[in-house]
């Protein structure tokens, strides 16, 4: 697919002799050709065959936010049920399904996909390319994620929603104690979302390593992009573990294998090791992108580059490595040997060092910056206040003797909401406010934005701080009710009121965005005078992102650009070509043509869904699905006529070049 002939780096000024019409018209014709080549296809079929990373990224984000809303409603139902002792609003069966759905949805259908959506939307823009490396795979990843979500909720509505918790420990989720299809639904949903996550991880890592703008060497990659590279590698190593685990569970349930059956030589603890080998990195897969948002927002609003950039990158990478070495702290109560536990205690505590280093660097960044406080900054400052509590309670959980007291209690519920809402959701909402002008071309309402922040800060702490105390007072997690005499009523009632305030905050944000997406003030390309490349194109960006791929000459691309910053010319405008650069120093390497619209990803997702969803009812659906996948793959890779002709023409040119005498 790759073409010979390296594109040239042109001086912008050299294209404007006399600053006259010629350059303008050149730009104009290129732009018109790109508009045509990269145009979105109309209609439903066009929608289904879309491969633009911005469209797909936004689909991820919006779908994930829909699931966030549903999971939020589930949380509200749980808070209502627990708001007073011996409440009977939800029966135990429904409660168990709802808490399982809440956790599963938040982890697999909201938190990871929304971060992936941000990566898919912004990484190609930030590195200065026109699309992700594998646009069809990208489209497939979205459809398979959507199919997994629809599958899970269809089963839930049919009263077959999973009910064994978001980590579905065996034997409770095994064939003996969970008859019916509930645990199968959960296990198969994992496969859907992890296929999606793996495809995103591959695209993002390749895009960020091979499609960077000329000059964006490794030490100039924005921290946002670094965070996405890091989680892509984490996904590639972590997700297969959980897919195997849930796959084994499915096999145990469907075809009577005995991976986890103790009486046949299997082991339920093996399930836990496999799950948490994924499960702990999963938390960092959600949390590390948030660090990227914090860096992006702080850079812009302190008007300076992030202090200690190499330390920041090293910390991200170090955190990613460490994240794979501390899963056992989820299993301290299972009775593992003392020495092994001490090792995991040490690893769990030491991961605080890179996180601490990053926090100190951000504080210095603020200290030496010129800070303007806007809604995104408030969310970042709120992140400091809230996340650090979660991080410090994490140190408590790393200590074996303390952990065995608070493990599986509301203390842990408090801890991970401080880490996930505090650590990831606060920056995510800050990022939404920050990039809202880029998405819509309009500004959000500042006052309403700040109101949403204060509501979230108050509501969040009111909901989750009391849970620390509830845990110490002995309240285990996942109980559908509790007895009057235990004295847990008042704190639970407080938490339930807080949950209402959180809902109000989210509603404020939603109203703000809905109203201002239509009637907000026009934002222009770069309302914040920000530093990364996505702010150099119009808001919202055109389908091809850049008329000419940019050239980068510093860590803050737009701030470090000269008035006559060079850019790249020589990419074909009649094809979807992108520039491929070298991994380390991002020097031009070659041109690569990316595929355009295709219905194949959608069809492949349908075929995969038939195989995966069918197999939990009848095992033969799996090979049937595999056969369908094979057929679609043939269609996927069937060469187009124009590609064949192109190839022949190129070949002829090569031959002519080799025989200059003729």
């Amino acid at each position, binding site marked *: 697919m790759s073409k010979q002939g390296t594109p040239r780096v042109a001086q912008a000024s050299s294209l404007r002799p006399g600053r006259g019409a010629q350059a303008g018209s050149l730009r104009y014709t290129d732009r018109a050709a790109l508009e045509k080549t990269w145009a979105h296809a109309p209609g439903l079929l066009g929608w289904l065959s879309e491969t633009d990373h911005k469209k797909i990224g936004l689909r991820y984000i919006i779908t994930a936010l829909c699931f966030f809303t549903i999971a939020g409603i589930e949380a509200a139902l749980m808070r209502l049920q627990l708001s007073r002792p011996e409440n009977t609003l939800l029966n135990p069966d429904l409660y168990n399904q709802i808490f399982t759905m809440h956790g599963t949805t938040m982890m697999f259908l909201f938190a990871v996909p929304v971060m992936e959506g941000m990566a898919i939307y912004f990484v190609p823009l930030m590195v200065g390319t026109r699309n992700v490396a594998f646009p069809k795979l990208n489209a497939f990843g979205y459809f398979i994620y959507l199919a997994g979500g629809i599958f899970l909720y269809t089963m839930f509505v049919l009263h077959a929603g999973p009910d064994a918790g978001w980590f579905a420990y065996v034997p409770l989720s095994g064939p003996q104690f969970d008859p019916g299809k509930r645990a199968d639904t959960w296990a198969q949903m994992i496969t859907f979302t992890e296929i999606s996550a793996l495809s995103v991880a591959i695209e993002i890592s390749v895009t960020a390593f091979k499609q960077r703008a000329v000059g964006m060497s490794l030490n100039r990659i924005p921290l946002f992009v670094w965070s996405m590279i890091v989680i892509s590698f984490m996904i590639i190593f972590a997700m297969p573990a959980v897919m195997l685990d849930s796959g084994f569970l499915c096999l145990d349930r469907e075809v009577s294998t005995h991976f986890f059956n103790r009486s046949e030589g299997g082991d339920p603890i093996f399930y836990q090791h496999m799950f948490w080998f994924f499960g702990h990195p999963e938390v960092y897969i959600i949390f590390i992108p948030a660090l990227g948002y914090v860096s992006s927002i702080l850079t812009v609003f*302190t008007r300076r580059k992030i202090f200690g950039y190499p330390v920041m990158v090293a910390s991200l990478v170090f955190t990613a490595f460490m994240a794979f070495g501390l899963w056992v702290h989820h299993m301290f109560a299972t009775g593992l040997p*003392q020495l092994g536990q001490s090792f995991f205690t040490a690893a769990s505590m030491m991961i605080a060092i890179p996180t*601490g280093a990053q926090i100190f660097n951000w504080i210095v960044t*603020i200290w030496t910056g010129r800070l303007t406080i806007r809604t995104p900054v408030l969310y970042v400052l709120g992140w400091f206040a809230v996340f650090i509590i979660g991080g*410090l309670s994490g140190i408590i959980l790393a200590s074996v*003797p303390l952990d065995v007291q608070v493990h599986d209690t509301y203390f842990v519920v408090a801890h991970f909401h401080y880490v996930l809402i505090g650590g990831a959701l606060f920056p995510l909402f800050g990022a939404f406010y920050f990039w809202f002008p880029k998405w819509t071309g309009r500004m959000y309402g500042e006052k309403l934005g700040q109101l949403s922040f204060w509501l979230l800060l108050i509501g969040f702490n009111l909901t989750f701080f009391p849970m620390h105390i509830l845990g110490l007072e002995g309240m285990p997690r996942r109980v*559908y*009710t509790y007895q009057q005499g235990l004295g847990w009523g008042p704190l639970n009632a407080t938490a339930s009121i807080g949950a209402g305030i959180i809902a109000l905050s989210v509603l404020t944000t939603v109203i703000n965005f809905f109203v201002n997406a239509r009637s907000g003030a026009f934002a222009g390309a770069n309302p914040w005078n920000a530093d990364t490349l996505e702010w150099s194109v119009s808001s919202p960006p055109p389908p091809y992102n850049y008329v000419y791929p940019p050239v980068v000459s510093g860590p803050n691309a737009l701030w470090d650009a000269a008035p006559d910053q060079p850019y790249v010319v020589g990419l074909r405008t009649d094809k979807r070509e992108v520039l491929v650069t070298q991994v380390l120093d991002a020097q031009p390497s070659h041109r690569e043509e990316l595929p355009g619209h295709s219905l194949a990803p959608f069809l492949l997702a349908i075929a995969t869904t038939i195989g995966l969803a069918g197999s939990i009812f009848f095992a033969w659906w799996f090979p049937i699905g595999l056969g369908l996948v094979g057929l679609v793959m043939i269609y996927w890779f069937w060469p187009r006529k124009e590609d064949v002709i192109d190839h022949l023409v190129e070949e002829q040119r090569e031959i002519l070049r080799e025989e200059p005498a003729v």
Partner: protein
Amino acid sequence: MIQSVLHPAGIQASRIGSLWNGYMVVLTTVYVIVILWMLVAVWRAHKNAAPQISDAEERPHSITVGVAVGITTVTLIGLLIASVATGSAVGTYGDKKPDALEIDVTGHQWWWEVQYPDPEPDKSFKTANEIHIPLHQPVLLRLATRDVIHSLWIPNLNGKRDLIPGRVNKLWIEADRPGVFRSQCAEFCGLQHAHMALVVIAEPNEKYQQWKSHQQTPANDPVTPEQRHGRDVFLSLPCVNCHAITGDAYATIGPDLTHLATRPTLAAGELLNTKGNLGGWIVNAPAIKPGTAMPPNQIASNDLQDLLAYLESLR
């Protein structure tokens, strides 16, 4: 009756409690310092006329960050050492003490079977949802499960330990003051995870011995005609398929009822052990605890009265 980490009643829980207090002091200090640092930074940055980004301006801050990371590392190592020391003291407590009392605890969906083994088989006995222990005596709980994973957690005495299929886990406890300490299953175990409690009754040794020797006796014989008829009702109903009463029935699926009337609660802590509650439980247990293995029983009202009279006599 309390269930709280913050009111230790035994040496393990006290040690963990001291570690807890130490951690709280350190972590709160860290939090306050970092947040104050951040707030001062925000206040300064709000007044800065322009960002300071030259190398000369940044150098002192590099030192600050380096020192902060160093302090963090040292603090963490300190916390780590304290944690490992406490963990090892708590985890191995009693290993070298010769006079340990051993009790077998078996988890069921959703109740606790408690067995006091004895070298003489007829001296060993079972009870349910209660553990009696003498004061100042190291007790080794041997934990097993009949079905799914459960977790035994008596917060006032020690941290929790899971009950895992195919394994026997061990947990040391020791009570240093008398009391009734509540415990509740901590690992999600299905529909009635919320209703799987037990109580630990810590009492002076002579009281404990009294209780123990009474539990070792066979069930009381019925005395009154109602009680005698009650026993016939018990033996003619499906009760005997699951329950044991020494001398009459020996099934092991449900709790042993030999000394039912001495227990404070029914249905793993869900109901107080009163005659009315017991009657309601026998007639329609699933209405009280959906999912329980105890089936509803159709039973004539005078038969029920006699059955209750008999069960109430099992002291």
